[in-house]
């Protein structure tokens, strides 16, 4: 069977997700300006320990081999290690994303002793200034201290996860060198205009010239650098990047949010892409197999406005979430379409939808610009809408 027909099968959905992201909490010690889930404060409706364990049991029965845990900062949860241990008991591998604040020497040793565990430290600048502008003051030192602690505890090959922005594309080689110096693996992903990222995307998303730099750099480094398959829109430049190269939302990918709500992917926490809840009758399994939203996402999609473009087979029209949160039609070009169709579409796009929930702390955040400060405003405080 050829790879393309495998991709065709994937588009019709799998019996269970390959890549399931589970945001454990909306609470976070940081307030990154591009946070996909607008995290900050805990939501009182978040799943209890027992509810979360029941979800893990269900994922075990579905043979979901591994999950990606995030947040918020997942280590904020008091039952974090209890849930990790339960996942391990269920033979579910865990990769969790963290800013590193709670990876003390003691916790690093505890993590190093566990099986089926991967850790992804978020870092969005190869130096303190670049990183802290986006992730907040002190966050660079926090991340590097966590990495030191993991190395000293002989954790093994952890990952450094970088969201590519206009300010750090030029640091790709430095990120790689940093990862190599820790014996870590570099992972780079695409900036999405989701959550607070919707407010900062315009000033942070890579320029057209930088998109080309990312593509060339990835082609050069191949499978040694992870991407979460997030750059398939760049395939219109030429040969395909490694990976599945399709939008996996609701087909091979989904998100469980801290409340147990199931969304099509981690980048579309919005009512329009909510498929159901793990707390409903039938649980996650029913949502995955039978929800109206996921069923519709598995039907053949129309290339729409991209039909006449010769690159559609390569780029697949790009990312659904990027289109949605920039006000573009879902059956048209990606806002970062490498042929420039996105920029054209953006100039006549309607109002972009606002995220349905916001758990940001009730403060005003600023991106500390090198030249002039740019305000990032928040409309609501910690209360979910």
């Amino acid at each position, binding site marked *: 069977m050829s790879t393309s027909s495998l991709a065709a099968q994937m588009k019709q959905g799998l019996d269970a997700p390959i890549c399931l992201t589970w945001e454990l909490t909306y609470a976070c010690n940081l307030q990154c300006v591009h946070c996909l889930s607008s995290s900050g404060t805990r939501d009182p409706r978040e799943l209890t320990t027992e509810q979360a364990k029941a979800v893990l049991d269900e994922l075990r029965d579905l043979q979901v*081999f591994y999950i990606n845990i995030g947040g918020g900062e997942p280590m904020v949860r008091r039952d974090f290690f209890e849930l990790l241990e339960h996942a391990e008991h269920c033979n579910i591998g865990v990769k969790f994303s963290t800013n590193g604040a709670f990876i003390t020497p003691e916790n690093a040793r505890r993590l190093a002793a566990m099986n089926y565990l991967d850790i992804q430290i978020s870092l969005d600048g190869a130096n303190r200034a670049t990183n802290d502008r986006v992730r907040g003051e002190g966050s660079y030192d926090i991340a590097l201290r966590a990495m030191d602690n993991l190395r000293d505890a002989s954790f093994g090959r952890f990952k450094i996860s970088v969201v590519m922005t206009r300010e750090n594309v030029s640091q790709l080689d430095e990120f790689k060198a940093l990862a190599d110096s820790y014996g870590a693996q570099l992972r780079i992903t695409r900036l999405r205009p989701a959550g607070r990222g919707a407010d900062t995307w315009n000033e942070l998303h890579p320029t057209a010239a930088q998109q080309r730099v990312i593509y060339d750099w990835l082609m050069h480094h191949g499978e040694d650098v992870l991407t979460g398959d997030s750059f398939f829109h760049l395939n219109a430049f030429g040969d395909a990047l490694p990976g599945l190269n399709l939008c996996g939302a609701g087909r091979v990918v989904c998100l469980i949010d801290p409340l147990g709500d199931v969304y099509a992917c981690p980048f579309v926490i919005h009512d329009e892409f909510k498929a159901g809840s793990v707390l409903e009758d039938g649980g996650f399994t029913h949502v995955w197999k039978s929800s109206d939203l996921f069923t519709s996402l598995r039907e053949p999609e129309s290339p729409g406005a991209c039909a006449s473009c010769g690159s559609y087979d390569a780029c697949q029209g790009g990312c659904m979430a990027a289109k949605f949160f920039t006000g573009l039609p879902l059956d048209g070009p990606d806002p970062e379409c490498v042929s420039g169709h996105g920029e054209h579409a953006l100039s006549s796009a309607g109002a972009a939808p606002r995220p349905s929930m916001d758990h940001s702390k009730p403060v005003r955040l600023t991106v500390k610009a090198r030249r002039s400060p740019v305000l990032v405003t928040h409309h609501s405080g910690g209360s979910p809408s």
Partner: protein
Amino acid sequence: MTLTLDSACELHPDVALRPEPFGALAYHYGNRRLIFLKHPDVVAVVRDAANHRSLREVLVENGIAESRWPSFISALTSLAQSEVIRVH
């Protein structure tokens, strides 16, 4: 490593298989790799391999036409390199 019709194989003990419409997903808990088994016949052969003394016997028992054996040996060699199966 190249397998032959005389090789005796088994599913690697660190690997779990999950049936899917196209065949199966294989997950290796040791190296954390996910591998696609892209045909139900390959899945049947991989699952049954440990019960036989040679791959030839596995292919015969699973009704795989002889004309397909070279492509099966090649696919199984690649699965052995990914540690989805191993020689026993």
